């Protein structure tokens, strides 16, 4: 009697297509054949982009690069669930999100080659520059979503961060504000089980990342992050909820980073080949292919043509990227403030960079 239960929570998990390609009929039925093809083709494209980025890095044609292999469903499924009016806030490992939103791949390659111009999103693409300091961009999404609400715009913001990012104070303060001010934002944790060498179970003692949402008074859900249909559906529901004014959602995409942390890392120092192999069987393309094949949507020829198109497209983007004029040294100054300060003008002159 003196001890009462005053609050209860449950953490849900969503999967639509399992590793064997079996789908939940009631949920998969909302996806048309062309939806599934769009997913499939986007995964192939992102994967092609990614693989070429890794080669370019090895050849010294771009700098350190963070691979997305294995996380394509989490990135693309969620990115597709937003409208073009919505704003996305990616971390550095979100090439797949950007590609899914039509971000020019040649610009992405420029970025990874160490050229800031690659992060100047085209005017019709509402994607914030990738955040390198982990998790610190979470409050920006809350703020932008809050501004949408205050301005009466029917839009949402989405922000991507890793399991590691959930440990930062920025995550805490960003989610807490989102809860208090009930703003239209979707928090997308890409739980890929590792933060460089730290395994997920050492990142936090909580069993799920999703449950952290309850600390802020809104809902969290874990989805199979290698199931693009589940990721899409959970995100879509959250985006619609946000736009109805019903506040934020935290979605934990349970996935796996199949490659090294970045091209500067050697994951064999801290995790076993067996672990990686076991996750390879669960990666997003296999199950989608199996399901599509069963449904008669996938054929070998279809995939070949998709791959071919992706390769051609990536080839031409790389060419474009590499033929782009060199950056102007005075750009170092030109974007620090809206206009040059007297001191900067003097420095540009001292450097001999006047135009």
């Amino acid at each position, binding site marked *: 009697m003196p001890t009462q239960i005053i609050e209860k929570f449950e953490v849900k998990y969503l999967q639509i297509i399992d590793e064997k390609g079996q789908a939940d009929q009631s949920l998969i039925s909302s996806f048309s054949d062309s939806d599934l093809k769009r997913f499939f083709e986007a995964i192939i494209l992102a994967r092609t982009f990614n693989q070429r980025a890794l080669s370019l890095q090895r050849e010294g044609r771009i700098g350190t690069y963070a691979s997305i292999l294995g996380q394509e469903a989490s990135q693309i499924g969620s990115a597709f669930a937003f409208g073009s009016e919505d704003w996305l806030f990616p971390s550095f490992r979100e090439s797949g999100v950007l590609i899914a939103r039509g971000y020019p791949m040649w610009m992405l390659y420029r970025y990874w080659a160490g050229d800031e111009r690659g992060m100047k999103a085209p005017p019709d693409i509402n994607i914030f520059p990738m955040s390198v300091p982990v998790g610190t961009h979470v409050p920006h999404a809350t703020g932008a979503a*809050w501004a949408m609400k205050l301005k009466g715009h029917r839009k949402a913001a989405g922000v991507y961060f890793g399991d590691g990012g959930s440990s930062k104070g920025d995550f805490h303060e960003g989610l807490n504000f989102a809860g208090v001010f009930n703003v239209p934002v979707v928090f997308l944790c890409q739980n890929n089980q590792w933060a460089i060498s730290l395994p997920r179970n050492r990142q936090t003692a909580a069993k799920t990342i999703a449950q952290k949402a309850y600390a802020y008074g809104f809902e969290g859900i874990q989805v199979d992050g290698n199931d693009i249909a589940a990721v899409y559906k959970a995100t879509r529901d959250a985006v619609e909820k946000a736009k109805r004014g019903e506040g934020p959602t935290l979605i934990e995409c349970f996935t796996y980073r199949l490659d090294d942390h970045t091209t500067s890392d050697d994951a064999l120092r801290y995790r076993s080949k067996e672990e990686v192999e076991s996750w390879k069987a669960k990666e997003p393309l296999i199950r989608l292919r199996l399901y599509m094949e069963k449904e008669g949507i996938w054929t070998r020829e279809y995939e070949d043509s998709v791959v071919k198109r992706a390769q051609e497209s990536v080839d031409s983007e790389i060419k474009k990227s590499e033929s782009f004029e060199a950056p102007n040294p005075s750009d170092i100054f030109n974007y620090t403030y809206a206009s040059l300060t007297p001191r900067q003008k003097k420095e540009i002159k001292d450097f001999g960079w006047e135009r």
Partner: protein
Amino acid sequence: MGKINIVQAINQALSQEMERDIDVVLLGEDVGKDGGVFRVTEGLLSRFGPDRVIDTPLSELGIIGAAIGMAAYGLKPVAEIQFMGFIYAGLEQVFSHASRIRSRSRGRYSVPMVVRTPYGIGIKPPELHSESSEAIFCHMPGVKVVVPSTPYNAKGLLVSAIRDPDTVIFLEASRLYRSIKADVPDELYSIPLGKADIYQEGNDFTVVSWGTMLHRAAEAAEDLDCEIIDLLTLKPFDEEAVLNSVKKTGRLVIVHEAPRIAGFGAEIAAFVAEEAIEYLKAPILRVAGPEAVIPMARLEDYYIPSKDRIRKAYETVMKY
């Protein structure tokens, strides 16, 4: 036109600018119902409503971080940090984001926000309510730093800060909030950032100061023929005004309350030692806080540069 203090001048600037520009929103701890712990935002909630005058959780990182997102989206947030001693939690947001988002996105996004915060020693408050860390913000390219010293310039500079396309750290000397009253035009006006004010003209030596210390530096200068420069904007500071004066007087004393080592006075001195050394007749002296943790009330007066210490510096440079 009426005689008002700095609290009222800032309140006017906020309220008139909010009237003019619907995108201006205020957020911070206790800025709404309570009107701010110094009453700077008094009356604004009832005038502009809770969508534009926002009481936030106790969360300095969150306030600045969310304001960055608001600004990037198109609002003009004016964030209040209750005391400068609590801004440190938001430094990563300022240093890694507010100051770099324009550059990072090559101009696609920017962060036109103001972070207002009371700073400085002199009101005998609890610990950490007396910080004066302007130098660390001045060091980071991409943010501007403004420190008004009178009701008149507080109003005009805040208006410019709000309209500025970049992030501005706006430091309000808590000791001055109610201690000076002066005539301030009722209507909205602005004072350009980056321009110093020649607070007093003179010939024998130059004094550079800002905020609270400006007034003490001026008091200590009584009956001396010196030129007193009120920097007003620290980043970017008015190099020309400093240089012209030093070239005229040949002597320079800098007065600030922040710790001396790597304080902003060092930049002024180094700048002059680079650009005008041949004009100098005397060492460049800094009168500043010592190499010590800022004390609580009982020892506060010993820490803050006293009129005597400042006067002594003036006399020293005049010996050369």
